[in-house]
């Protein structure tokens, strides 16, 4: 083999480090795909509970996974992927909610009526139910941020109070006390709104 041929072969040769890199990249992509399959729906529900808009919630989920893609080297170090992902999407959702302009109440009712499961209800009943839920959610929106956040997350049956504390970065006892306060405030708000009607 002449020198030039040897040099050419050297250029064409796939180095071992490149193979390792390819393999690692493939493994990361597989792990990410598994996370998407397992948790995309959960993240969507978390996002929807705050944003109350289908496309906004879906965008938030995509953004969350794109963030994970950017930090995919850390996936292996994560203890609880579900809580980690919920924390990511939670931060995105709160950020979006803060930046978004408030939509008129009629938009929320229409959106909720559209996505509510039929469950044997007639169109009128669904509309009434959507209106009622929207009213309750409007009252929830009036709560202080700390109480509101805990209340939203407590609605997810798959999240324990320890996990909620993990997502919010607070202690479990704080979660409980905030939840207690939130419930009391909500009862007061609903009473007040009913007396106004």
């Amino acid at each position, binding site marked *: 083999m002449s020198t030039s041929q040897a040099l050419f072969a050297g250029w064409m040769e796939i180095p071992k480090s490149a193979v390792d890199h390819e393999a690692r990249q493939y493994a990361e992509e597989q792990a990410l795909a598994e996370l998407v399959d397992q948790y995309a729906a959960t993240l969507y529900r*978390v996002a929807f509970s705050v944003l109350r808009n289908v496309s906004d919630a879906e965008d938030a989920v995509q953004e969350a996974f794109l963030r994970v893609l950017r930090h995919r080297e850390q996936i292996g170090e994560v203890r609880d992927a579900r809580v980690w992902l919920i924390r990511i999407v939670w931060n995105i959702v709160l950020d979006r909610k803060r930046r978004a302009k408030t939509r008129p109440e009629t938009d929320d009712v229409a959106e909720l009526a559209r996505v509510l499961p039929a469950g044997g209800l007639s169109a009128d009943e669904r509309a009434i139910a959507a209106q009622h839920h929207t009213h309750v959610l409007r009252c929830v929106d009036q709560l202080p941020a700390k109480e509101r956040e805990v209340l939203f997350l407590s609605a997810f049956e798959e999240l324990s109070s320890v996990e909620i504390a993990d997502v919010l970065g607070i202690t479990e006892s704080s979660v409980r006390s905030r939840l207690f306060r939130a419930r009391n405030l909500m009862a007061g708000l*609903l009473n007040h709104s009913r007396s106004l009607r």
Partner: protein
Amino acid sequence: MNREWTAGNESEHNSKQDEVDATLRVVASLPAPEGLEDRVREALRTAPRTARVLQWPARFVTDNAWVRGAAAAAIAFAVAGGGWGVYSRVQTAKVIEMPSQVSSPGFSNAGATRKPETVNGPVIHRPEAQVVELPEKRGEKDAGKKAEPGPGKQR
């Protein structure tokens, strides 16, 4: 009575809490739209990846110390040669000597002529002012006026 009222109030309180829980649960259990996972996966596939460092060709990755040495020497030679090239082409500028300042340093007088101080001439003594006793004169006038009878009075 009071106990009944408290119990009623409490049950109403609890029913409100149940109402809130029910709404939040309904919202929290809404199904995700169909094909969400596929769309997310597609977004991840098309997302730009962070730049990776280019791989050196295998020939240069070997542990041959002479390759590294030669590369370092070539870089040093190129840098030194470039520096010498610049240095040799730079012409030193002629230094123009500025005339030394004749006058005293500082601002010029801008063409203003200097006037010498005037010589002390003869001192003109002003005559002493005569002291006129005005009040006395006035008094005399007044006295005169008083003494002289007016034309009306004369009649």
